[in-house]
C-alpha cells in the first residue's frame, strides 16, 4: 500500500500531461471537424464564383448550344449562348413520372409494413427494401435498360430513365412512410376504429392527413436524392438536343447535360452554372422539407 502511495505521488506530476493530452485530443477533434465541413463551403463557393456569370433568363429558356455555337462564342470572348432548357424539362418530366411510379406504391408498401409490423413476411419485405436501397444506381440503370429500353420502348427513353429513378425513390418513400406512421400515437387510430370507421377510411382520412407533413418530407427528400443522378440516366434516357415530352423517346436531364458539357472542350464553362442550378434545386427541396418539419414541431 505504501509503495502505491509513493507511486501515486509520483504520478501527481503526470496530471499536467494528462490535462494536456485531454486538450490536444479536443483540439484534434475540433480541427478534424472543421476539415470535414470545409468541402461544402469550398464546393458551393466554386459553383457560385464560376457559375453566376453564365446565369441569365436565357439560361432557363433556351436549349443547350451545340458545340459550334459554343466554339464561336469562345473565340469571340462572349458568353456561350443558350441554356439548359432541355435539361430542365427533361428532369422535370422524369422526376414527375418517377414520382407517379414510386409514390403510390411506396405509400402502400409503407402502410403495409406499418400495419404488419412484427410479422415474418413484413420483415422480409423490409429487408428487400433495404437491399434495393443499397443497390448502386448504375446497376439500377442496367435493370431499367433491359426492362424498359429493351422490353418496352425499344430504344432509349424518358420512361426508362423515370423507371430507374422511381426504383431509387421507392425504398426512401417506403421507409419514411413507415417511420412517419409509427410516430402517430396509437390512440388516434383507436379513436377512429372505435367510431366504427372502415379500415381504408382510417388510412385515407386519419393516418395520412395526420402524418402528411412527414410523408411529404419523405417524398421531397427522395426527389432531392434522385434529381442529381447521372449514371442510371446514361443507360436509359441517354439525352437529347431539344426539349422532349415524349416519354418513349430519349430525353435530356440537367445532370446529363453537365456530363455532356464536361466532355466537350468548347462547352466546359457551362458546367458550373448548370451545377449551380442543380444544387439550388436540391437545396430548395431540403429547405422546404426542414421548414415543414419545423412547422410541424411547433
Amino acid at each position, binding site marked *: *500500500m505504501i*509503495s*502505491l502511495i509513493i507511486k501515486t505521488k509520483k504520478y501527481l506530476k*503526470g*496530471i499536467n500531461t494528462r*490535462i494536456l493530452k485531454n486538450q490536444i485530443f479536443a483540439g484534434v477533434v475540433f480541427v478534424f471537424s472543421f476539415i470535414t465541413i470545409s468541402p461544402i463551403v469550398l464546393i458551393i463557393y466554386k459553383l457560385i464564383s464560376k457559375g453566376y456569370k453564365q446565369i441569365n433568363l436565357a439560361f432557363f429558356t433556351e436549349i443547350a448550344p451545340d458545340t459550334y455555337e459554343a466554339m464561336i462564342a469562345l473565340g469571340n470572348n462572349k458568353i456561350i449562348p443558350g441554356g439548359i432548357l432541355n435539361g430542365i424539362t427533361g428532369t422535370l418530366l422524369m422526376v414527375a413520372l418517377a414520382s407517379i411510379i414510386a409514390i403510390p406504391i411506396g405509400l402502400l408498401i409503407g402502410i403495409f409494413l406499418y400495419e404488419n409490423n412484427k410479422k415474418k413476411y413484413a420483415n422480409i419485405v423490409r429487408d428487400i427494401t433495404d437491399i434495393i436501397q443499397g443497390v448502386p444506381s448504375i446497376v439500377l440503370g442496367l435493370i431499367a435498360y433491359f426492362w424498359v429500353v429493351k422490353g418496352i420502348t425499344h430504344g432509349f427513353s424518358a420512361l426508362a430513365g423515370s423507371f430507374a429513378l422511381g426504383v431509387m425513390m421507392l425504398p426512401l418513400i417506403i421507409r419514411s412512410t413507415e417511420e412517419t406512421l409509427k410516430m402517430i400515437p396509437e390512440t388516434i387510430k383507436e379513436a377512429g376504429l372505435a367510431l366504427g370507421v372502415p379500415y381504408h377510411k382510417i388510412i385515407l382520412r386519419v393516418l395520412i392527413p395526420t402524418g402528411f407533413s412527414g410523408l411529404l418530407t419523405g417524398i421531397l427528400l427522395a426527389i432531392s436524392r434522385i434529381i442529381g443522378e447521372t449514371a442510371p440516366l446514361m443507360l436509359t434516357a441517354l439525352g437529347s438536343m431539344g426539349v422532349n415530352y415524349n416519354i418513349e423517346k430519349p430525353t435530356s436531364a440537367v445532370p446529363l447535360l453537365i456530363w455532356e458539357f464536361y466532355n466537350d472542350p468548347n462547352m466546359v464553362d457551362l458546367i458550373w452554372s448548370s451545377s449551380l442550378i442543380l444544387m439550388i434545386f436540391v437545396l430548395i427541396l431540403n429547405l422546404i422539407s426542414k421548414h415543414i418539419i419545423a412547422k410541424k414541431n411547433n
Partner: protein
Amino acid sequence: MSELIKYIEDPILDIKNLSVSYNRDKYAVENVNVGIKKNRITAIMGPSGCGKSTLLRAINRMHALYPTIETKGQISLNGQDTSTMSDIILRRKIGMVFQRPNPFPTMSIYDNVIAGYKLNGIRIKKSERDEIVEKSLQDVTLWDEVKDSLTKKGSFLSGGQQQRLCIARALAFRPDIVLLDEPTSALDPIATKKIEELLIELKEKYTIIMVTHNMAQASRISDYSMFMYIGKLIEYGKTKNLFINPVNKKTEEYLTGKFS
C-alpha cells in the same frame, strides 16, 4: 443551525456559503454552511427537489461537467481549498457511488474495481493491482462471492452485488471521503440491509456522506444528519438529537411525515 458547526472540530470537509444554480435566478442549493466529521456517516435528508443530490455532487465538482450550472462558495478538504485542486485529483480523494448501480458493462469485475487506475492511465504492477482488487472487494464483502469469476463481466451480478462492486470501485483509490447518492433506492430490502451494514463497517476507514430519501435509513446508520428544504440547510446535528428533538418546525414536520 449554525451553532452546531462549532461542535465539529477539524471537520474533514468544510463547506462554506455553497450555492448552486441551474439558471440565473433559481438556486437549487442556497448558502449552505456545514462541517463534516471524519470517520462518520453523515446523511443528507429532505423531500424531493430540496437540493440534496445537488449539494452532494457539488462536493466532487460533478457540476463542472454541465457548463450552465453555476457554483459559488468554498469547499475545503483537510484544510485545503478544493478549488486549488484539479478535477482529477479531487475526484481521487472524494469518490462517488450513484443511485443506479453502474459497473462498466464492457469490463470484467477485476477491471471494474481498478477502473479508476485504468481510466487515469496509472500503471501499476500486476501484484499491486491484484492486491488492490482483493482488498477493495474484501472491504465490500464481495470477495468470496466473486473471487472465482473476476474475469467475467459483471452483468450476472444481482443489483446489490453490482452496487457493492461500484463501492469497491470507488474505494480502490482509498479516497478520504465517499459520497453516496441514494445508494440503496434501486435495491431490494435484503441488498439494502447488506449495504447499510457495509457502510457502518467502512466508516472506520472512510468518511461517508450519503443522500437518502429514506428517513428510517438515516436514523439507522448515520451519525450526523442534515435536513434540507428548498435548497437551504434547515437543520444539522447528531442524528439522535435531530430525530428526537428537532429544533426547526420544518424538520419536525418532515420527520413526522407531514410531507415527503
